[in-house]
Structure formats: C-alpha cells, structure tokens
C-alpha cells in the first residue's frame, strides 16, 4: 500500500467512531489471516486519539492483537529457518557430489559402492576373493580348435578349475608360445602366451584362497565394464594394448591383447 493510500485510509478511519473502529479491529483480528493493511491504520488512528483523550480499547482486542503479532513473528522465523535449512542441505549435497567426483580419480572404482575390485590412475586390483570357487560346473564343456587353448584348459583342470575361464577362440595365426605353472605360498599362477609374427596375446590366471597381492597395470583412463554371462570384465588400455581383467570361479584373470576392442570382446565371449 503506498503512503498516499495509507494517508487516505487513515483519513477515512478518522471519520469512524472509536467504538466502531474497535469492532472492525476485533473482526479483522479474529480472521485466520488478518490483513495488516486494515489492522495497522485502525491502530494508528486509535493511538492518535489516545493523545487527546483516553481510548478504551477492549482487553479482548488487545489480546487478539498480541496473539496476531506473535503468530506473525513465529511464521516469519519458521520461513527463515526453512530457507536456511534448505540452503544448508543443498550446500552439503553439492560438497558430497564434488568429493564423490574427485574420489575416483584418486582412489579408483567404477562406483564407490563397488566392493569386488577397484582401480587408481595406474593400477587395478581385486579387494576380495570370489566366493564362487566351488560352484559345480557340470554343464560346462570346453571345445576349441586352437591346440594351445586346449593345453591351457588342461592346465587349469589340473589345478582344480574346470569352469569357464579359458577362451575357446582366438584370431587366426596365434600359436602357443609358452605356458607356465607356478606354485607359491600365495597360490597358483598359470600363464600362457600366444604369438603371431609380430603380435602376442598373454593370458594369466592367479588362484588363491585368501586373494592375491596382484596389481594390474593400466593407463590413466576410465575403465569400461563389459558384462557377459553375468561376469563383469574390466577393459582398460595399457600402453598400446588392451587389458581385460575379471574374476570368475575364484580365479583372477587378465588378458593382454594388441588388437582392437571388437576382437577382445569376441575372445571374452568365447569363454562362456
């Protein structure tokens, strides 16, 4: 309400008797949402009259006014508190989001809720051994045209792993270069290398009841998760090669290939 409007309204109330003003004030204050633009001018008028002669404002009206003032103050505080609370919540949420964004660059995980494996800028490692080591694999049959892969599968069966961990397919031209089995207090390691004239594919399996201390090298790029047959395979770059790391049947597996990702995915899919 502008000052001019207020002045006009005051002048209007000056024409009204004190008794009538009290009734108007009482009526307004009894409303759920008293209008201050009506209440205040009436009070101002009554206060002006108080200077000249005593104005008998009923106690009931005074109580209503005091109650109205209290309510107005409480609602104003509640609104301020609500606004302040929302701001604090938004600020804390923003900080948490920023920290979560920062954490993968330093700690490393596809998700901070991932518990099986994690990675940093330069290495990938498993946090706990797979619990599915002893799951029965009665339906699994290994068949491959690559004699080297068949030999590798036979080595895995000899150490008690007869489930799907060895690929059944490899690109043409790759022959078995070497295959090694090692026993240590940490567990068993089976390693095979397949070579063409100028390229090599390396496959390594580490088997340990309590988990290994192995780290898998990677470039500082994000890890892509390739899920196939219910197993998460982590694909990363390692220098010019692609590296695929996964865990299945209690075995830590890594495949290093100097081929494009389509070939890598085909090798992985042939495991199952």
């Amino acid at each position: 309400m502008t000052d001019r409007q207020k002045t006009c309204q005051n002048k209007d109330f000056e024409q009204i008797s004190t008794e009538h003003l009290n009734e108007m004030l009482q009526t307004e204050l009894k409303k759920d949402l008293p209008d201050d633009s009506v209440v205040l001018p009436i009070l101002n008028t009554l206060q002006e009259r108080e200077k000249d002669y005593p104005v008998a404002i009923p106690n009931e009206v005074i109580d209503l006014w005091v109650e109205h003032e209290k309510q107005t103050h409480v609602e104003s505080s509640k609104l301020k508190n609500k606004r302040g609370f929302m701001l604090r919540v938004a600020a804390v949420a923003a900080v948490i989001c920023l920290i979560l964004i920062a954490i993968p660059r330093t700690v490393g995980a596809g998700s901070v809720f991932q518990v099986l494996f994690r990675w940093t800028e330069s290495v990938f490692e498993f946090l706990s051994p797979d619990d599915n080591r002893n799951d029965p694999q009665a339906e699994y049959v290994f068949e491959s045209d690559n004699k080297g892969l068949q030999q590798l599968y036979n080595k895995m069966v000899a150490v008690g792993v007869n489930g799907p961990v060895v690929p059944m397919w490899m690109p043409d031209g790759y022959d078995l270069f070497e295959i090694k089995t090692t026993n240590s207090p940490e567990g068993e390691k089976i390693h095979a290398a397949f070579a063409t004239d100028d390229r090599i594919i390396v496959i390594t399996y580490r088997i340990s009841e309590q988990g290994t201390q192995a780290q898998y090298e990677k470039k500082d790029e994000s890890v892509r998760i390739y899920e196939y047959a219910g197993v998460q395979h982590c694909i990363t770059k390692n220098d010019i090669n692609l590296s695929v790391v996964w865990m299945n049947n209690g075995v830590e597996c890594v495949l290093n290939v100097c081929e494009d990702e389509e070939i890598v995915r085909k090798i992985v899919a042939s495991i199952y």
Partner: protein
Amino acid sequence: MKKLIRVVCMVLTLSLVASVAAQSVDAVEPRESAFFSSHSVSLHKTSSTSLKVCFDVVSNALIMDEIGASMIEIYRSSNGVNWSKIKTYYKSNTSSMICTNTTSHSSNVTYTTALSGYYYMAGVTLYAKNSTGIGEKLRYTNIVYM
C-alpha cells in the same frame, strides 16, 4: 551463513588440490606400464627363522630379453614403524631372480636368519628389458611378524 560458505569453499578447494596432486604424482612416475601387464609380491614365514619373498611379473604382451626382479631388499623393525634395511639381493648374484626370452617370470628368495619378536617387510624392484629399453617398478610386500 557466511561461516557455512567459508567451510564449503575450503572443502571444495581441498578436493580440487587432492585431485591435482594425485595427477601430478602420476605425471612424475615413469611409464613402466609399457613393460608390465600385472605383478604380485608377497612375504611368507616358512619357519621360526626363515622368510620367503615371492614375486611374479607378466609382461605387457611382449617377449622380454630379461624379466623378473633386479633387486630385493629385506627390512626389519622392532615396532612396525621404523624400518632398517638388513639384506639386499641383486639379479647379478641371484640367478633365479631373472628369466630370459619370455613373457613372464615367478620366483622367490629365502632369508634364513630372521629373529623372533621383529617385523619384516621386503621391497621388490620388478624389472623388464627389451630392445626398446628397461622398465622397473618398486613394490613392497605385506608385513610379517616373527
């Protein structure tokens, strides 16, 4: 409100600094991943006076002229905090530490004069060499209490 804004700004700054610092550390380290695919080191108590340091290293899809460990250092501590180096093995005088013309090597060395009541740890310098150069990476084993 002003205090809250100051705290938020401080946390944001610390997060950014941590991210930049992590990147800087990686930028300083040599790119040994060109030579290595995966590796593992561990320390095991094999008797009341013997410790076995095990390592295995796999090349990054390359046939290496030499691959294995160039140096293994044994450390001892009375409190698990302050460490002293007590023994060093070199590839030049421990033939089992290196293998030639291969893509992978696993081996171990045994330290036979460990004392009870002490903590032990080993530092293994993994090593690979081919026509393009040499790659090395230092890793520390788990701690064993005798």
